[in-house]
């Protein structure tokens, strides 16, 4: 029974962690789904959110989760500006240009963080971040549970927003057929900027919960970008449910990989799953 009991821990933690991974991937998926833009700066923008919460927590003494009331609008505005002033100009030129601009933004954010915060590893060590509780013999860190709840809330809100409001429907319409959306009177340039903004607002939430769960450095963004890509590749682009499931698959791959192969190998299984999925079904398991 102990073997099974031991296995229960990585299983539960993997699922909970998967929520966080889905949340991290959400903004990347949204931006790709609507603008066909691969935002390789997404991981760094998530980490920017983490550092903002770190600033609020250590300097202003605001709880990281509460700091989202400022962090989300701030990242929303940043995303809106990136799309409006940088990306939108480059869309017509070629496919590579927006991708390379995103690369540039990634470099800039990493190094601004590096200059301000130094390369040292940090964490959002609130009192609850270190707590854990026991359910059915499995010890679960509270942070992991919070991650999962936050992911559920954000995904639920976002899907309701996309389904119920004019603006949400317009975003969905633009993602399915941009030109038709324009012909229906939708200002797609504005929709794009808003979409990027919304994606960054979700990145702000992801950033905070990431910081509560893991230590981070200015270059952590790349690792989480890869995770987000993995989630999207498994879940398929533009499917909310797929993103959620993709997150859980990757979370489980990581915790089970760690359990069977040791901590250093925990991401290897996840990456191999990603490559295998790519080879078999390039559009993702849940993709259209």
């Amino acid at each position, binding site marked *: 029974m102990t073997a099974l009991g031991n296995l229960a821990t990585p299983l539960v933690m993997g699922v909970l962690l998967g929520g966080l991974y889905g949340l991290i991937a959400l903004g990347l998926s949204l931006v790709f789904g609507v603008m066909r833009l691969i935002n390789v700066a997404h991981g760094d923008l998530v980490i920017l959110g983490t550092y903002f919460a770190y600033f609020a927590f250590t300097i202003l003494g605001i709880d990281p989760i509460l700091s989202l009331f400022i962090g989300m609008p701030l990242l929303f505005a940043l995303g809106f500006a990136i799309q409006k002033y940088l990306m939108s100009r480059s869309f017509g030129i070629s496919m590579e240009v927006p991708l390379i601009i995103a690369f540039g*933004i990634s470099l800039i954010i990493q190094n601004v963080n590096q200059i301000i915060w130094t390369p040292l590893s940090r964490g959002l060590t609130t009192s609850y971040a270190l707590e854990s509780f026991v359910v059915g013999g499995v010890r679960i860190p509270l942070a992991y549970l919070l991650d999962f709840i936050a992911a559920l809330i954000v995904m639920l809100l976002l899907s309701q927003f996309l389904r119920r409001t004019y603006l949400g429907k317009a975003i969905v319409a633009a993602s399915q057929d941009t030109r038709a959306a324009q012909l229906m009177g939708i200002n797609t340039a504005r929709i794009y900027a808003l979409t990027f903004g919304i994606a960054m607002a979700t990145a702000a939430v992801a950033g905070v919960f990431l910081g509560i769960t893991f230590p981070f450095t200015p270059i952590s963004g790349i690792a989480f970008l890869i995770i987000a890509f*993995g989630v999207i590749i498994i879940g398929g682009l533009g499917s909310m449910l797929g993103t959620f499931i993709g997150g859980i698959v990757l979370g489980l791959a990581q915790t089970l990989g760690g359990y069977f192969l040791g901590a250093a190998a925990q991401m290897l299984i996840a990456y191999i799953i990603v490559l295998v999925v*790519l080879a078999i079904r390039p559009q993702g398991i849940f993709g259209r």
Partner: protein
Amino acid sequence: MKVAIPGLRGGLVPLVIVVVLVVLPILGVPRAWLLYLFLFFVYLAMANMWNLLAGYSGLISLCQPAFIGLAGYTLVIITWNGLPFYLGIIAGAIIAAAFALLISIPVFRLRGIYFAIGTLVVPEALRIVFFLWRPVGGALHGGGAGYMVKGLAGISMSGFYWMALAIGITSIFLMRVILRSRLGLGLAAIRDNDNTAASSGVDVFRLKLYSFVIGAFVTGIAGAIFYIYQGYIEPVSTFTIRWTMILILSTVIGGIGIEEGPIVGTVIVVILHFLLARYAGLSLLIQGIILVGIMLLAPQGIMGFIRKARASRSPVTVSH
């Protein structure tokens, strides 16, 4: 007056430039200069190959660090087995090319940006592999601690420099040959319209695979030479996206899809690298800003900008 760029115009000028570059160490040029030039030629070879992939073959490959690192680790394995380092370079390039062939199975199913995502994962996976796997040596070596490259005693800075010079010049020459060959014409056709190319008999998949494998081979040589100079390899700084950034920067600043692009771009990247060496973070920050700025103001890079300016000055199209 026309600025001559090495290796671009046929005839005497490039030959003279090459000869001067070859004899530089003998002339007693400061070691630091040789180091700048060493990095320039290593980066140039890699950037030329990235240009071949991204600029000419429509393959935005983000897995170049995999080829660099695999070649580096092959070098380690070879030298730890008592074989000479030059065998390590060749074996490294072959392993890199073979690996390109292997991963082409999954990633060539992906088109455009999906290809970029797929290739991005590859170096990350390799980093973990080399964190865990200790191909040679005992528990003291390998893993996160990395390996020293053996059998390098007796190679001076001049030696490193000549190796880099050789691969740098070769890569320029290779680009010239490829772009003027059947392969080059086929790639140009694919770049303009892949559907028409296919219905004209071009095997799009195969040509892209050729350039992917060639790119991996040359990048592998350059990578091995870099690790011969560094004398040491470990996974974290090897399988890193920073390599990719350097290659993209060099190519894009100079002009992607333009033969001379990487030469100009690499000069700028290396100069920035050393000018700002003391402020590591600032250097990359500035490079990031340059990258975004170039993309917005002159997406065809410096050479593209110059070409356009020239073309608009003289109404006659340049003829060969």
